């Protein structure tokens, strides 16, 4: 056993040391697999970034309350009496002013052009109050100031301000019933809200001639208080409303797009992987063919078939792993942190997010690379071990 391990090591070392003399053909495997892994990791990092942006929104001890049956904030309607029921429900924490810390909010869409473009995009206008910073302590004004209650002023999320035109302080943006003035920019740890613009809820109600909220977001006394709070609301005969923990709601809003990009990413990776596999097979067959005499010689002087097979597979694996690492590194260099904005069909609004090349994606890439390398080396190695020694030695 020890001797065949030694054989494996020595043959593999010999193979790998000889790679530089076959650089061109060896590069085929490396570059081919780097291409596959690069595309796969880049696409999956898009899905991952989108998922993380939505999943990082909200906290376990906050709940979002919508009309029973509605899927998202935009399609929910809560009249003031329903909102009052929520405020009075057990489990809602008190704010610094001693009142229940829950805000009835408006969720509307307004058309804003992307930077350097003219066509309209669905940007979220959230009608809220100055207490929003107590309700969502992760958000804070980083430039300018908060809007004045009752005045047609706007604070823009950092991502919205970067992606869309005319959201810098001093700019005018069409919200409802004419232009509103941007007076500040807020950040919210890169979550979904940063893609929104916030305005005063009463000013927006007046301008849009609406009397009802879309949702209520409530701070609970603790994350554990959620069940009691939810039960109290769902059993209240006066209202048909539903409560969800914030992270659950926002995570659920990424499902469709996430699934679409993931399916695309894996489909492309699998199909490209098959293409690269053919390339790897070609290379390894050629590698084995050009070394048929060496291999036959090794076998003639007593090296077993096992070590020969394993050494060829190992060579293929090393090349593939190198390709996987290069592909992952290229995806990281070019795409990690790259910000895009797209229409999330599940909320009918624009969400800005960053591509995130995470360690688990890089790991997936290397695994995928090694699988291709393993199969790419397997068949040629078997052929190498099968050719009769005499024929191989004669063939030169």
């Amino acid at each position, binding site marked *: 056993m020890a001797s065949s391990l030694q054989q494996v090591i020595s043959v593999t070392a010999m193979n790998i040391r000889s790679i530089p003399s076959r650089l061109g053909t060896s590069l085929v495997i490396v570059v081919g697999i780097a291409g596959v892994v690069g595309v796969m990791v880049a*696409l999956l990092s898009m899905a991952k970034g989108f998922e993380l942006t939505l999943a990082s929104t909200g906290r376990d001890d906050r709940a979002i309350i919508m009309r*029973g049956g509605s899927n998202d904030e935009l399609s929910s309607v809560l009249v003031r009496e329903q909102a009052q029921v929520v405020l009075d429900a057990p489990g809602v924490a008190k704010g610094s002013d001693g009142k229940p810390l829950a805000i009835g909010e408006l969720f509307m869409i307004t058309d804003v052009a992307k930077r350097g473009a003219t066509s309209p995009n669905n940007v979220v206008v959230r009608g809220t109050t100055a207490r929003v910073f107590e309700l969502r302590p992760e958000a804070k004004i980083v430039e300018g100031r908060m809007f004045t209650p009752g005045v047609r002023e706007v604070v823009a999320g950092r991502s919205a301000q970067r992606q869309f035109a005319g959201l810098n302080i001093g700019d005018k943006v069409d919200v409802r*019933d004419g232009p509103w003035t941007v007076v500040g920019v807020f950040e919210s740890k890169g979550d979904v809200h940063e893609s929104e613009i916030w305005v005063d809820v009463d000013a927006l109600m007046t301008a849009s001639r609406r009397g009802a909220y879309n949702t209520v977001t409530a701070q609970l006394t603790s994350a554990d208080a959620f069940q009691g709070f939810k039960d109290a609301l769902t059993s209240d005969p006066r209202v048909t409303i539903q409560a969800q923990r914030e992270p659950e709601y926002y995570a659920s809003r990424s499902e469709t797009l996430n699934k679409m990009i993931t399916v695309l990413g894996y489909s492309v990776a699998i199909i490209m992987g098959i293409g690269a596999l053919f390339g790897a*097979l*070609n*290379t390894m*067959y050629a590698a084995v063919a050009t070394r048929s005499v060496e291999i036959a010689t090794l076998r003639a002087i007593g090296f077993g078939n096992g070590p020969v097979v394993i050494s060829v597979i190992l060579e293929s694996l090393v090349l593939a792993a190198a390709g996987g690492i290069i592909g992952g590194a290229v995806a990281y260099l070019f795409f990690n942190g790259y910000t895009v904005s797209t229409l999330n069909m599940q909320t009918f609004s624009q969400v800005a997010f960053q591509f995130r090349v995470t360690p688990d994606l890089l790991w997936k890439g290397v695994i995928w690379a090694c699988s291709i390398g393993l199969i790419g080396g397997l068949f040629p190695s078997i052929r190498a071990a099968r050719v009769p020694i005499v024929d191989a030695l004669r063939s030169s």
Partner: protein
Amino acid sequence: MKYFPLIWAALGRRKPRTILTGLSIAIAFLLYGMLNAVNVAFNYGAEMSGVDRLVTTGRYSITQILPYGHAHQIRSLPGVTSVAASDWFGGYYQDQRNFFPQFAVEQEEYLGMYPEIVLPEQEKQAFFTTRTGALVAKTLADRYHWKVGDKIPMQAGIWPLKGGGNVWTFDLVGIFDTANPKDRGQYEMMLIRHDYFDEARQFGTGTAGWYVSKVKHPSEAGTLAKLIDNTFANSPNETRTDTEKAFNQSFMKQLGDIGLIISSILGAVFFTLLFLTGNTMMQSVRERIPELAVLKTLGYTDPLILALVLGEALLLTLISALLGLAMATMVLPSLASQLPGLSGLTITLPTIYGALGVAVLLSFIVGLPPALRAMRLNIVDALMGH
């Protein structure tokens, strides 16, 4: 053409290698075909939609509601032949994941201005006479196994019923298809009647989400759009009107640059492929140096040798490209049935031309270096090298 057997024989020289190389090229063109079909499907809807139809939405967003009175005012404008109020129902069938669009429309006006939607006259009349009636696209009926006469319960995502109920039950009175199968993806939807919808909903009565108008002369569309918006300017409900084509195009733009993503992927695919095949071609020529030298000795001219090696690359790439496209054609129908909204996935003629163009380019890039090398061979050296 008389050199074809020679080229063919060169490809058959090492069959496993030729087959493996051909397969990796075919795989690249399989991806090319599939991704292009997706790209075409995304753009097709916008390109094909009517230039004789205008869409009027709220000035600030499609999500605003407009008073129903707007319909009468638009209809009275000279040059407008009909107007259909429309609303987004936004419900779902059984599960939120079963997403497909449902529109509440003014039935006669709407079907009158969308000749691309076809259904039996009898079913059309049934829709006109059944207030709770609904029409669905054939692709949807197939997916959910619906047939005419079924009652379809829809969960309301936005609009509860007057009594507060959340389940609307529609009578399926007809199943429509599109005049051109390519349009299927664009019209994969359910239609219900706006009059019934408006009367039965809990709030929003007397409004519509947007208006679609048909204009007599497409050339007047731009002027009419302005006229409509001017009609409502400075009113509490200002509008934004565009041709349906421009409206759909700007909506597609909201998704981001799908074309760019797809061409980036394909760029990476072909760059990878270039490496795989280029190397094999070089190797194949290197192995045949003595044979090429023999050909030269026999009197084959340098340009002919160049042409032979290039022809070999071209033949292999073209056959593989066609194989890849054929595979894509076979895979697409089953893929399309899995992707809601993309039922019209097909390989179009421009895609095929594009593929052939890429194949020729590819074969030149990978074939030229070895072909030049073969052309410049010095007979004596080449023969001695062995």
